[in-house]
């Protein structure tokens, strides 16, 4: 059962543009929502994460927006750069239970 749905599968953005990746989850017990960035031949690396007690978190050019009522969260990449080309995965888990449930990834 896929519990985290991610879209789009792939995304092409012009340099300087805004990249937006969306995720939706089903399990209301999830309370930790990280985003991972994966370059070819490398393992995923934590990019940014959010807890449901805040609606937005920003780190540099990367922002997570969180909508608890809609059970959705999204990653915004501002001023997109060629070096941002990678696959991005959203994930969700219950803190204390390390079973991260991942989305299927977005190739940017």
């Amino acid at each position: 059962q896929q519990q985290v749905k991610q879209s789009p599968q792939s995304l092409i953005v012009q340099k300087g543009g805004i990249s937006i990746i969306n995720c939706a989850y089903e399990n209301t017990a999830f309370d930790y929502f990280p985003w991972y960035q994966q370059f070819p031949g490398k393992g995923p690396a934590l990019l940014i994460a959010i807890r449901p007690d805040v609606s937005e978190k920003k780190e540099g050019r990367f922002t997570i927006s969180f909508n608890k009522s809609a059970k959705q969260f999204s990653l915004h990449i501002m001023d997109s750069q060629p070096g941002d080309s990678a696959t991005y995965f959203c994930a969700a888990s219950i803190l204390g239970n390390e079973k991260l449930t991942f989305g299927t990834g977005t190739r940017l």
Partner: protein
Amino acid sequence: EAGVTQSPTHLIKTRGQQVTLRCSPISGHTSVYWYQQALGLGLQFLLWYDEGEERNRGNFPPRFSGRQFPNYSSELNVNALELEDSALYLCASSLVPGNSPLHFGNGTRLTVT
């Protein structure tokens, strides 16, 4: 600080064979996690070990097993390999057991023919 290391980087096996993958966590990390990354399926949770004990297991058959050694390194064993086992197997570790963030290695690419 050395990251999570995995070996081998690539492996080719025949259906029905057995395989062992190895992982060394970041120094000081006691929890080790295994994930399978099959094409188009994202990352699927396999196993979580902490202090030598299996703490959680994903929806995989029993032919997927593993262990954690006293130095916190870990092995993932897959018996009776099937074609659909072809995937990138990722190991991760964390400083606080049962708490993120996870630090991933670069994985072992397993191809079953």
